[in-house]
């Protein structure tokens, strides 16, 4: 009696297990994306939040650092050397250093990621400012700009293309690096990847990995578009 009842309740698909069941364990499975939509969206949102927070923090710190390095050339090699040293440390080993201060929180991951992005950004900012032609700088002085005015209205805008190239590199690698935050359970899509490895759940870890790459591409395109809006002269002259 019970057997027949089950047979009528179950849809015909019950004969073959869903493509993400442990028996089949397919790599690509839309059923999984459909069934776990909430979980996937939550992870993606966390991933984006951590990435964007780290990038914003890095830009905010990189600006004064680059300015200091520029104003006091003696400090430049020190600042660059220190940030390169930080970059040498693997991400998995960098996060634990913040643990005693910020604990098992998203802040720990954000701080670590910001340090990596910082290395790229300070360098890009200095390269960008250095790329401003001397005669342009002299013309600005000749037009009556003070040091601050020239920096804000002449040098920074002209440094923007090189800086944005650095920001693209920083953004793409930060998206990828955020996954390592899974060590602290704040890795966005990295959490899904880690769970997928632990449970041998192929659909979960491949979906998360692909989403991660897509997220990086999306952010890259967004930055390129922003740059086109901010620096209309760069593509106007090339046409």
């Amino acid at each position, binding site marked *: 009696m019970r057997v027949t009842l089950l047979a009528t309740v179950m849809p015909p698909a019950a004969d073959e297990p869903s493509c993400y069941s442990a028996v089949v364990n397919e790599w690509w499975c839309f059923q999984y994306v459909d069934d776990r939509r909430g979980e996937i969206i939550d992870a993606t949102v966390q991933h984006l939040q951590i990435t964007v927070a780290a990038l914003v923090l890095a830009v905010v710190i990189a600006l004064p650092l680059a300015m200091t390095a520029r104003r006091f050339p003696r400090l430049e090699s020190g600042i660059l050397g220190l940030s390169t040293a930080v*970059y040498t440390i*693997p991400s*998995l*080993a960098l996060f634990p250093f913040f643990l005693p201060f910020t604990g098992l929180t998203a802040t720990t991951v954000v701080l670590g990621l910001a340090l990596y992005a910082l290395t790229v950004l300070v360098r890009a900012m200095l390269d960008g400012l*250095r790329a401003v032609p001397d005669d342009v700088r002299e013309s600005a002085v000749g037009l009556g700009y003070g040091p601050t005015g020239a920096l804000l209205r002449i040098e920074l805008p002209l440094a923007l293309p090189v800086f944005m190239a650095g920001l693209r590199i920083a953004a*793409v690698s930060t998206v990828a690096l955020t996954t390592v935050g899974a060590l602290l359970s704040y890795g966005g899509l*990295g959490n899904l*990847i880690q769970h997928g490895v632990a449970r041998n759940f192929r659909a979960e*870890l491949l979906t998360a990995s692909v989403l991660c790459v897509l997220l990086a591409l999306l952010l890259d395109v967004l930055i390129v578009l922003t740059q086109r809006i901010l620096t209309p002269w760069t593509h106007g002259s090339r046409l």
Partner: protein
Amino acid sequence: MSVFGDTWNYLLDPASWSGQDGMLTLLGQQMVLTVTALLLALSIGLPVALTLGHLGRGGFVAINISNVGRAVPTFALLAVLVTADWPGTATFGPYGRAGLATLVALTLFALPPIITNAYAAVREVPADVVQAAVGMGMTGPQTFRRVELPLALPLVVSGIRLALVQVWATATIAALVAGPGLGRVITDGFAANYYGKGIAGAVVVAGVALVLEGASALLQRAADPVPRTRPTRGSGQSSDRAPKISSVAGPAGH
């Protein structure tokens, strides 16, 4: 803070260094992995990139492979390799559990910086110098061996240096997928809520990374045929070209 005390004690305890799962064994394991992967990547990447650079072909691929390498999370690739039927988690010779999967991932992630930098290095050799060599009657291979290669060497070495940093970092992340290496001290410590151990592992990993980076910096200085009074990182050519190169072949993600 007691966490620092735990870290200090773990580092000083001889027991945490010795034995099957001791840090010395894991350090050796990760070092062997790093060296093998770097040599593999060099033997694949250098001939391809240098040939392409000499012929002036395939620039789009050589430059963009670094961008692709940055966008793919090392963790994700390791996860896919370990979960797949091959290479999977099988123990592989001296490389430990999931050794083959780790080795494949390390080699793949070492390739982009090597290829991009070696290609750019050969392309950045001034055209007039190459023309002068041809004008003196040098054949293609002679030009490559006696003119292009020596002038490109500093930038090639800086690519190898980036690759080394990258490989060491990836080898550490292998622990997140239950792979070999020192990263296991970090993940084990975190899994057991024994944060002192996790931080101790991080200290050792970071220390070795800095030593490797320092040693390769000295090596790079030795490879420069024209010693500079104030060497700029990542530049073998005139300093005004350096920013362009460093933004093309800049640091990869790890």
